[in-house]
Structure formats: C-alpha cells, structure tokens
C-alpha cells in the first residue's frame, strides 16, 4: 500500500484537510471532548480486552501507532474501527483514559469521507441505517434488514427471511416505516450539522 502524503513536504491529498496538523491532532480535533489520543503508551490493554479483536486487521494499539506514524491510508482501510462493537471495555480499562471507542467512531467518519477507502459491509450497513433516519426521523428495521441482507448476505437470505418472518409473526416488526411529524425541522438541523462537519 502506498502512503500518499510525502512526510517531508506533507504534500498529498490530505494536506488541505490536515491544515498543518499531524494525523493524531486531526483525529483529536474531530472527536468531541478530550479524546486523549496522544496519551497512548502502547500498553495493549485495549487489544487484550477487545471481544472482537481476533477478527481485526490491527488491534487498537497498533492502529494508534499507525496514526502516529502518519500511515493514513492503512489506517483508513483497516477493518479495525468497523469491527469495534462499541462495548467500551477498552475505554474503561485504558490506564491513560484514552477514549478509544470514540476515536474508532472518528476514524470511521474519516474513512467514509475519503474516496480512497474501500467499501465494506459495516460501512454500507451504517449508511443504509442513517439513510432511513434522514428520510423518516426513525430507524426502519424491516427496510434495513431486508436491503442489507439482499446486498451483502445473499448466501444467508433464507436465514434472514426466517428471522424476519419470526419477527413479523411475533408482532415485533412493521413493514412500513414510522415518520416523525416535524421532519423538516430535523432535516434542517442535520443539513447544517453536515455543513459544519465538512469545515472541520
């Protein structure tokens, strides 16, 4: 994999967005609160605590070392943040109180915004999910599950259908989405928020 930013000149597609910041500073700036990313001492408590760590390309510790080494393309194409299950075990165990789970979210948003990253199932799931939230103001389990299953799990569509049928017969799923009343208000808020995000 090529590193697109020249370390001496900092020339590359990132240079405008980084605005003279290191990659670590850039991630910190985009994470609400004090993420404490620069405090990582590479102890590995995070990876050792992670329930899905065995399926990750890199442990959180490795990923943070890669951030420090400015390996942006490798970081953004790592499956690590997408395999984070948001259990916050690493966050509460980290001796340096690095907000690891929050940082994983930030890295996901950076990957989504970057045209060089590869699509993946997790990312498509998130984007389909928020598509429904943007359109209705509510999540829509039936639409999400069926659309996602058809495009990403063609081999297990039967299992998904059985599950969906079970939820329907147990009166635990609706075929139509629920829409909030003041959707225009929510749309304005989200639109403005996305504009602000683009400026970061």
């Amino acid at each position, binding site marked *: 994999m090529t590193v697109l930013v020249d370390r001496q000149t900092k020339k590359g597609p990132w240079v405008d967005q980084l605005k003279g910041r290191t990659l670590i500073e850039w991630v910190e700036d985009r994470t609400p609160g004090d993420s404490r990313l620069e405090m990582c001492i590479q102890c590995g408590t995070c990876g050792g605590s992670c329930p899905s760590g065995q399926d990750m390309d890199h442990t959180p510790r490795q990923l943070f070392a890669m951030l420090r080494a400015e390996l942006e393309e490798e970081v953004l194409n790592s499956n690590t943040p997408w395999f984070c299950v948001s259990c916050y075990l690493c966050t509460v165990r980290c001796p340096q109180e690095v907000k690891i789970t929050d940082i994983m979210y930030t890295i996901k948003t950076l990957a989504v915004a970057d045209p060089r990253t590869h699509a993946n199932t997790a990312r498509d799931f998130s984007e389909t999910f928020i598509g429904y939230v943007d359109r209705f103001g509510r999540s829509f389990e039936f639409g999400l599950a069926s659309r996602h299953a058809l495009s990403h*799990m063609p081999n297990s569509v039967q299992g998904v259908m059985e599950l969906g049928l079970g939820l329907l017969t147990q009166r635990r799923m609706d075929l139509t989405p629920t829409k909030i009343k003041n959707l225009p208000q929510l749309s304005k808020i989200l639109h403005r928020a996305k504009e602000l995000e683009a400026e970061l």
Partner: protein
Amino acid sequence: MKYLFYPGCSMEKSAIPYLMSLKAIEDKLSMELVELEDWNCCGATEYSAVNRIASHALVGRNLAIAESMSAESHTLVAPCSACYLNLSKTDHYLQEDRIFKARIDDALAAGDMSYTPGSIEVRHALDVIYNEIGLEKIKANVVKPLKGLRVAAYYGCMIVRPDLHGYYDSHEYPMILEELLEALGAEVIDFPMKTHCCSGHMTQISGETAYELIRRLIYGATRYEADLMVTLCPMCQLNIDAYQSEANRYFKTDYVMPILYFTQLIGLAFGIDAKDLGIGQEFVDPRPALAKIDVEVDEAPAATKKRRVKEEGLPMPQMPGKNGGGD
C-alpha cells in the same frame, strides 16, 4: 413520580414486549412516564460512524424537546442502553467541550431549537427503578415471588460503560440487577459474563464474529445452570433470542437459553398476566423455565413451533441392516 420518557425506535418494533411490560408495571411503581413529543431516532451506533456532528445534533434535538418539557420533569428515562448512552453522551460532551457545543448550538438553531447542557438528567430505566423507586417499593408489590427460578442477570455494555455520569459502582461487575431480581424472589446465579458484549450490530456485518460472542454468553448462562437470562436492552434481547438458533447452527450446538426483560420479571412477580407483559413473543421458548414458577403462557412462540409432519408422510431412504431395513 413523573419522568420524561424516551422510548426509542426498538421499543416500538422488535422490543415491543419491553415497552408493554414497562407500561404494565408503571402504576404499581408509582411512575408516570411522559413521552417526549415527536422524538427522533438516537442514531444507534450507526450515525456517529458516518457523520459525527450530525449524530450529536440528532440527539440534541431530543434533548431540546426534553428541555422544553422540563416543567413535567428534569429526568429523562431511556429503557434502551444505546439510546441511554447516546443521550447521556451528547449531554456530557456539550458540558465538557465548548467548541463542540458551539457547533451543536449552530446546528440546532437551524431548526429553531436550543438545549442547555446539564438541564436534563438522562437515566436508564433500570437505574431509575432501582435507585429512585427503590427495592422497598418493589418488594411491597410482590405477590407472586419468583421462587425457584434461576436467573442470569445480563447487563450488556452500554449501561455500565463508559458511565460518563458515574451512576454505577462498577464498569464490569455491577450488582443492582441481581439485587432487584433477588427482591422479586428469584435465585440469582453467578454470571461472570454479565457485562460482556452481545455483539451489537455485528450479526449484520460478520456472522462469525457475532455468533462467537453470542455463544460465549449462552454457554456461560447454561454452565451456571440458569433457567433464563434477564436483560435490560433491546439489542441484547434480539441478539440472544433471535440469533440463538443461527449461533447454534454455526457451532453445531443445541443451547436453549431464553431471555426476558427485567420489566417482564417484575411484572410476573407483581402478579400481572404473562400476556400483558408481552411474554410469548420470543424465539427461544421461555415456557419450560416459567413453568417452574407456575406461569402459564397460552401462545407458543412461532419460531419454535413444530411443523406437523405425518410420521408415515414421505418414504425415507433406509440403510440396510438398520431399523429392520435388511438382515
């Protein structure tokens, strides 16, 4: 006591039994849940993976609605762990980070809304029932103790972690659900997996990852001879209940571990009819477990219903020498 109430999307769909049972015990616990007007989705664990500011602005709208209704109550109760965490996290960061607050204020202003950080106290339903209503009140309403029912108290992750407001005494080994279940008369087993992950949305992303996390939990509960698991989160319930057969298929195991909401068990101990608590809508049949406390559920869960097949229906190939098929 009045509380503002944020049900969240799941409570109206896959977790309807949770909502039904919470509503069914509301009066007996002297709670009045006032639902937020025109609330929107909390974004779950998905919105913040795509748009960071928007994910918090999304939650900010709900907090702003709560503040506009604060004449009713300053405490906002969320029964879903993910909703609870998203609401409390946004409120926390708005108090901690002024630059972040300015951005959220700006976004909310586009919808003519505003929120004063810290003006609403976000609490999980379990926390409110345990700490505000209290065990004495619960015990006073128990008419049908859950005697002889062995339960595994399962918290999942997001209620006790990261616990930004410090409501829980432990991130990994809390005890309040156990105390509550004991107050109902149940026999609470030791369950070291109680705050381990149910796999969250991984069932939709990587089955292998998800089924292993589900397996660990049902293995743990089975090993300690629980009759059923007790949860407080719609996502945990869905994963353990609806994906248990998938996990069994994947690992070629045959675990049968039902999982119910803590509000359903409170309701049963209060003598409320199982049907009114949404019991009977599970994938993994809880009836054998509930029979131990003489609870009858009319409806058989659809997924465990046996298809009627005539014994002599189709001719099956037989191996010579077996079942009298040869000599």
